[in-house]
């Protein structure tokens, strides 16, 4: 066995989980464990206590209500992916989930766990950012909702305070008249993205872009909005020239991670811009079809 010894607590309610989290200096929440267990096997993480919340009934629920999909912290990616209601309500989420690792990982991995882990190359934090989602957090002081843009604060770092845990994610459903796309570049299916994008455009009656949302992942220390691309598109007719210009501006102001073993910074910029172009094309087409 590779992980260091730890104490295991199965929490069947959120208060139980919070009590266990508050009772140790280095306690971690265990949901699907598909990110946490590998880093424990590598002893990059050596928590004293693991608080397993995966069976807490209140965290095992997901529901669509008032244009928002709420996903509890115990809901696995695969459950969402195979759920007929989710497939109909949020196809962008289902496409995003399909890019994550392999079905065997998604069978255990959770959406909220991916948000809390905050891997810079992860798809779901970028989806939440692009769609203005919120993370619902519980702690001793009660519950609060953190907007996606404020939740991930650095690589593998979030706005969660000591003793807090993610209990749910709130994902606004893409509205009518908007078109969305997600895409990534990875060496093989299931690998971490070298560059990825989630984007959406809304078209007005005249075919102009009434709003664009572009979030990049795998290219910076956190998922990041491509404000440069969004500004180019706002109010513009999204023709080839506009989409070219948007893609060219996608990395404006983005602090791209430096050269590393998987890709150079230049590769991420060039390939990422091409990816943005491709995804925007798909999003505009989807918006046109939906209008």
């Amino acid at each position, binding site marked *: 066995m590779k992980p260091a*010894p730890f104490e*295991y607590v199965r929490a069947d309610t959120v208060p139980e989980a919070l009590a266990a989290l508050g009772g140790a200096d280095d306690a971690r929440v265990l949901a699907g464990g598909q990110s946490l*267990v590998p880093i*424990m*096997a590598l002893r990059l993480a050596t928590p004293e206590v693991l608080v397993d919340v995966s069976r807490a009934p209140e965290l095992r629920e997901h529901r669509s209500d008032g244009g928002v999909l709420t996903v509890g912290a115990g809901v696995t990616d695969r459950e969402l992916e195979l759920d007929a209601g989710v497939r109909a309500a949020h196809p962008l989420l289902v496409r995003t989930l399909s890019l994550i690792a392999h079905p*065997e990982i998604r*069978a255990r991995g959770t959406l909220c766990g991916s948000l809390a882990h905050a891997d810079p190359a992860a798809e779901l934090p970028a989806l939440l950012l692009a769609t203005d989602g919120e993370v619902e957090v519980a702690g001793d002081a009660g519950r609060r909702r953190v907007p996606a843009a404020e939740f991930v604060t650095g690589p593998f770092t979030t706005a969660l305070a000591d003793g807090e845990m993610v209990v749910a994610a709130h994902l606004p459903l893409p509205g009518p008249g908007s078109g969305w796309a997600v895409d990534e570049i990875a060496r093989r299916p*299931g690998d971490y993205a070298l560059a990825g994008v989630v984007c959406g455009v809304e078209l007005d009656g005249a075919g102009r872009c009434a709003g664009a949302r572009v979030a990049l992942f795998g290219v910076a220390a956190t998922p990041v909005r491509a404000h440069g691309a969004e500004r180019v598109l706002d109010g513009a007719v999204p023709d080839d020239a506009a989409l070219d210009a948007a893609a060219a501006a996608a990395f404006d102001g983005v602090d791209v991670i430096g050269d590393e073993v998987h890709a150079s910074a230049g590769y991420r910029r060039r390939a990422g811009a091409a990816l943005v172009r491709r995804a925007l094309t798909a999003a505009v087409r989807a918006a046109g079809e939906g209008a």
Partner: protein
Amino acid sequence: MTVAGEPVRVRLSVNGRAEVGLAEPRTTLAEFLREELGLTGTHVGCEQGVCGACTVVVDGAAVRGCLMFAVQADGRAVETVEGLAAEGGMHPLQRAFWDAQALQCGFCTPGLLMTALVALRERPEWTREALRERLSGNLCRCTGYSTVLDAVLAAGRAGAGDGGDDGSAGAGAPASGEAGPR
């Protein structure tokens, strides 16, 4: 609450049999199956979720046996490669691997079989391209995957994924040659 490192009792079903054993919290499900229950058909490769050799089926889903602690499997129904040939003869999927020469050293085979079993339960008919991606979480360093795809496609045509774990898998199907009794 448990004391760190102290073994705890784990009760679960493995291949339809009620089992009970002791596991430290840090013991993975794959290690528990091998070392506590003596089911060494499940192989342990990378121990960090990359290679797929330890894939087992938990409550109907193929999962990494190295990314789940045994304590998390408490009360769950686990299927391992030993369950495929429970009655002695080869399962149609195993027979298809044999016929297609879909293994050489065999280290990855139990994991591939369990992943393929679930894939065929999801749907028997796969395109070669979709199946290639569906099985892409299982690494094989011998075959180059071609014969693995041949085997799983053939097993799907022969109905190897039918029936789930109720013991009827492959029953009545004109499997490739001499399908096992299961």
